[in-house]
C-alpha cells in the first residue's frame, strides 16, 4: 500500500503548490479541492473513514464552496490576478521564512516520531459509532461548545455583511 500513500501525497503536494501559485483564484480553489480529496484518501489509509468522508463533506463540500462563492461574488472571470508582487524583498523574505519553517518543523518532529511506535488497532477503530460514543462521553462539552462557536460565527458573519448594506 505504499504506492497508495506516495501517490496521494504527491498529488496533495502538487495541487497545494498549484493552489499557492495559481494566477486566478478559481483554479486555485480547484487545486485545493484536489488536495482535500487526496488527503481524504490518506485518511482512509489511516483507518479514519469518518474523518475522510467529513473531510470531503465539510471541507470540500462546504468550506471550499463558500470560498468559491466568494470568488464568484467578487471577481469576474476577466479579472486576472496580478502575480506581480509589489515588494520583491518581501516576497523573497517570505519564501525564505517558509522554507526555514519547513526545515524547522522537520527537525522538530523527527524527535517525536521516534518516540511513537505503531500500535495494534482495535477492530472498530475509526468507525462512526465509536466517534459518536466519544462525542457523547469524553467530548460532550466540546461538542456543545462547537455549537456555540458556530452560532457566534453565524451571527458575526451576518452582522458584518449586513452592516454594509
Amino acid at each position, binding site marked *: 500500500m505504499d504506492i497508495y500513500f506516495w501517490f496521494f501525497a504527491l498529488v496533495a503536494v502538487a495541487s497545494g503548490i498549484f493552489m499557492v501559485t495559481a494566477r*486566478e483564484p*478559481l*483554479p486555485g480553489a*480547484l487545486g485545493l*479541492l484536489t488536495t482535500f480529496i487526496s488527503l481524504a484518501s490518506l485518511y482512509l489509509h489511516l483507518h479514519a*473513514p*469518518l474523518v475522510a*468522508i*467529513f473531510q*470531503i*463533506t465539510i471541507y*470540500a*463540500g*462546504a468550506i471550499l*464552496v463558500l470560498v*468559491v*462563492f466568494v*470568488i*464568484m*461574488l467578487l471577481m*469576474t*472571470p*476577466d479579472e486576472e490576478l496580478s502575480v506581480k508582487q509589489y515588494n520583491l524583498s518581501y516576497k523573497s523574505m517570505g519564501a525564505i521564512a517558509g522554507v526555514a519553517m519547513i526545515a524547522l518543523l522537520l527537525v522538530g518532529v523527527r524527535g517525536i516520531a521516534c518516540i511513537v511506535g505503531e500500535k495494534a488497532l482495535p477492530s472498530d477503530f475509526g*468507525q*462512526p459509532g465509536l466517534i459518536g460514543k466519544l462525542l457523547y462521553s469524553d467530548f460532550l462539552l466540546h461538542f456543545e461548545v462547537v455549537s456555540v462557536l458556530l452560532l457566534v460565527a453565524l451571527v458575526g458573519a451576518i452582522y458584518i455583511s449586513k452592516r454594509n448594506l
Partner: protein
Amino acid sequence: MNDLIIALIKVVFIWVWVLLIAVVMTWVERRGAAMIQDRPGPNRAGPFGLLQPLADGIKLFTKEDIIPAKAKKLLFILGPILFSLPAFSAYAVVPFGDKIVLGGKEIILQVADVNIGFLYIVALGSMAVYGIVVGGWASNNKYSILGGLRATAQLISYEVPWGLALLAIVLVYGTFSLREIALAQQGTFLGILPNWGVFKQPLGFILFIVAAYAEANRVPFDLPEAESEIVSGYHTEYGSMRLGVYLFGEYVNLCTLSALIVTFFFGAWHLPYINMASFLGPISYGIASFLVFFLKVSFFLWLFVWVRWTVPRFRYDQVMGLGWKALIPLGLLNLFLTALAIQLTA
C-alpha cells in the same frame, strides 16, 4: 481474483443499467411530456421513437465543439466532468436488489456495501456544486454566471433539509449501511403497515423528496437552467457532448435519487406483506428482488416527469424562502420528533 471478477461484473452491470435508465429516461421524458400535452412526441426514430436518445447522442457527438473566446479554457472543459463525476459515482453504494446465490456463493446486489455508504452519498451530494459553479464561471457569460450562482445557492440551500431528513433516517435505522437500512424494512410495522420508511418518517419523506427535486434541478426547482430570463442558465455556452454530459448527468442523478427514495422510504426490494425469499429459489429471488426494486424506482422516475409537466416553476427568492423558512424548520421538527419517539420507545 474471483472477488475481483464479481466486483467487475457488478460494476459493469450497474454502469450499463444506470446508463440505460438515463437513456430511456430521456425518451420517457419526451414521450411522457408529449402524451400529457396531447401530442405524440418523437416517434420517427425507431419503433415508438425509442431510438430518439440514440439519434440525439449521435448528433451531439458529431457536433462542433465551441469554446468561447472569452471562456477560461481549462475550467470550461473541466465543468461537465466535475458535474457528472459525482452524479455517475453515487450509485456505487446504492443497492439494486437483495442478493443472488450463484454456485453456492452469495453475491450482494450492490457494488459496495460499505459501512459508511450513507455518508458517501452525502459527500458526493455536496460535490455536485462544483460542476455547475465551474461551468458557469468558466463560460464567462452573464447568464451562465448568474445561473451558476443561483444553482449553487439553491443546491446548498436544499442540502440542509436533505441532510436533516437523512439524519432522521439514521436515527431510525441506526446504521450507515444502505443495505442494512434496506434489510430493516422487511415485515410489518404496528401490525398492519408494511415496515417501510415512509410510514415511520412521513414528514421526512416529504422533506426528502422535495429536497431531491431541488437537488436534481427539476421542475418546480429547475430555475438554474430554465428560468426564462437566463436562457439556459449555467450551460448556456455549452454545446455538443459537453452539453450532452450535463444533460446526461442530470438523468443519472434522477436515477440515483429515485433509488435512494426507494431504499430509504419504500422498502427497497421488499414487497408489502409478502416475503419473497420464503417461496422463491435463490436465483429467482435475486432476480425478483431486482425487478421489484426496479419497478419502484421507475415509479419515482416517472413521478419526476409527471410533476415536471404539471406545475410552473418557482421564483428564485421563493425557492430560498421555501428552503430556509419551511423545510429546514420542518426538518428540525422532524428530527426532534423522531429523536423523541426513539427515546420514548427505548
